[in-house]
């Protein structure tokens, strides 16, 4: 992988991180409301996976999806405007943080019913297979979602009918306050997939190199075999589940331990030590990120409010 590509990856992780930090601030300022779930700590996963995706590829993610949306190509300004509840938001202000949707980027959201998007992505992939329209279909979900029946039903059908989906489990060890080990009897998540005869791999989600390598293997397999693939990314969220979470359920030391494995610091240090990047370049990237995000915030602040008369639009096809 050449220097410029690696720089882009670092840049993308920094963009996601900074956007999330700003979201947290904007939340305390009450510019962003509702539920807000931050991806801080998990950036290498979306960054690595999205690296391989093309505009025409389909993605479904969860309520923790700001980073995924950004890296799938949804402009930061439309993401931010969405969280501000403005018409310029990617979902017209109707979705908010949990429901970033952008059809031009084939980013199907932003879904907040845990696991509901898993069979839906299988459906997207089935359509792509039937229509032969050369789209990949990728689904992101947390390890908590794997306890839901929907996961099980979807895996079985994807395997049975050879539907080419990439299942990306972001295993951050907790579903809200419930540790994986307190909620699932099988802790090796790849076994859950393999048991449906779905090929599976576990990945260190804090290491972008490994994310890239294993995602590539998975996508190649899907391309070659026309079958589904499951990736478990072992990762960690550095922040509480949402802005409402008192975070009472995890030992402080555990959080600290994981923070030491920050995927951004890891890549930065690696690139610096290999002299693939300079501190000046990193500063420059920082500035670019800041500029992008501040521009996004200004854009959002200046956004307009949907006229209340339009509330009942868009319910059915002809409700323009």
């Amino acid at each position, binding site marked *: 992988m050449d220097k410029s590509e690696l720089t882009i990856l670092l840049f993308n992780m920094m963009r996601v991180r900074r956007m999330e930090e700003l979201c947290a601030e904007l939340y305390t300022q009450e510019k962003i409301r509702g539920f807000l779930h931050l991806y801080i700590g998990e950036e290498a996963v979306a960054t690595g996976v999205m690296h391989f995706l093309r505009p025409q590829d389909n993605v479904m993610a969860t309520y923790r999806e700001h980073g995924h949306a950004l890296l799938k190509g949804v402009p930061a300004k439309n993401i931010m405007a969405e969280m501000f509840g403005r018409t310029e938001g990617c979902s017209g202000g109707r979705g908010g943080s949990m429901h970033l949707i952008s059809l031009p980027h084939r980013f199907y959201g932003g879904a907040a019913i845990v696991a509901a998007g898993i069979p839906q992505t299988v459906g997207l992939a089935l359509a792509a297979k*039937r229509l032969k329209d050369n789209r990949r279909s990728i689904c992101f979900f947390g390890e908590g979602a794997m306890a839901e029946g929907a996961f099980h039903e979807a895996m079985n059908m994807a395997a049975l009918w050879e539907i080419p989906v990439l299942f990306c489990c972001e295993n951050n060890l907790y579903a809200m306050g419930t540790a994986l080990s307190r909620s699932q009897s099988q802790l090796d998540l790849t076994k859950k997939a393999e048991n449906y005869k779905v090929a599976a791999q576990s990945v260190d989600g804090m290491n972008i190199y490994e994310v890239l390598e294993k995602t590539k293997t998975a996508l190649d397999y899907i391309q070659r075999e026309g079958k589904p693939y499951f990736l478990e990314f072992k990762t960690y969220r550095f922040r509480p589940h949402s802005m409402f979470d008192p975070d009472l359920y995890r030992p402080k030391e555990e959080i600290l331990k994981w923070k030491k494995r920050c995927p951004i610091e890891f890549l930065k240090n690696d690139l610096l030590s290999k002299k693939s990047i300079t501190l000046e370049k990193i500063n420059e990237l920082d500035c670019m990120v800041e500029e992008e995000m501040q521009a996004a915030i200004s854009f959002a602040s200046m956004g307009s409010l949907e006229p209340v008369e339009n509330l009942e639009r*868009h319910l059915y096809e002809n409700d323009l």
Partner: protein
Amino acid sequence: MKMTYREALREGLTHALEKNPNVFLIGEDVGAYGGTYAVTKDFLQIYGPERIMDAPLSEVGFVGIGIGAALGGMKPIVEIMTVNFSLLALDQLINSAAIFRHMSAGQLSVPLVVRMTTGGGRQLAAQHSNSFEGWLAHIPGLKILVPASVEDARSFLTFALKGNDPVLIFEHALLLNRSEEVSSEPITISPFKALIRKEGPRLSLITYGGMLPRCLEAAMDCQELGLDIEVIDLRCLRPLDDRTIFQSIKKTHRVLIVDEGWRSGSFSAEISARIMENCFYDLDAPVARLCRKEVPIPYARHLEEAAIPQMKEIKAKIQEMLK
């Protein structure tokens, strides 16, 4: 030309599958078994396993797959074997299919058709005799079709597939063997219009789905007794063509609603409330309702019959109201 409701459904499906290669059917036992109610017999042989997909027992899963496939450009027809099992998939229908267009400010559409058999009357007991179509009409974003005639059974699917919104079609199990005269080509009266199946000045009897034939029979019997009433077949519960109802009431001033759902919170309540709001001053008497008794349907025939409105009860109610 005579045709049964089952044949009509089959013709509608055949037409859909022939016309659009992106239409496919997915559900439990639609293929090898030939359809639980023999509607899709031989379809697997004719259209192959890519278009006639036998699904495992996974209602959340295959409804979710249907939604995704619709998002992805296909025109899926999902068969939920009976309405009873739809309870397992309501999350997908209500919290995904129904909201995606609105929540995305019009970007997404879910052109999904879900067919299910509905209704009681065959001694299948509590878990297999539900009638949820009226209840599901509460959900904005869904369209709810309730074909009661053979003609409608034939044409509704075509209409449902024309649009790009999720449509639920409820096929009443008791109607499957009903045979009716139909035109040689499908008649295309939009399903979003209620139809007056029998005109009459004395009372507006409003009904839909499995209750229509017995309401018509009661109306004919009453006719012979000199009680000439009007029978309205709603055909679609959401969106509801309430104009046709209101116009009828301007003429008759009396209303009876017959609904197979449990009385409290049934669709009949919504109709009554709308009449209250729009026709209060036209009414000569309070709107009356005949509904399912508020119990799970028992197996024993006489109990089941007592639980679901029967022709005789409907007739007696009309007579009472016109006394």
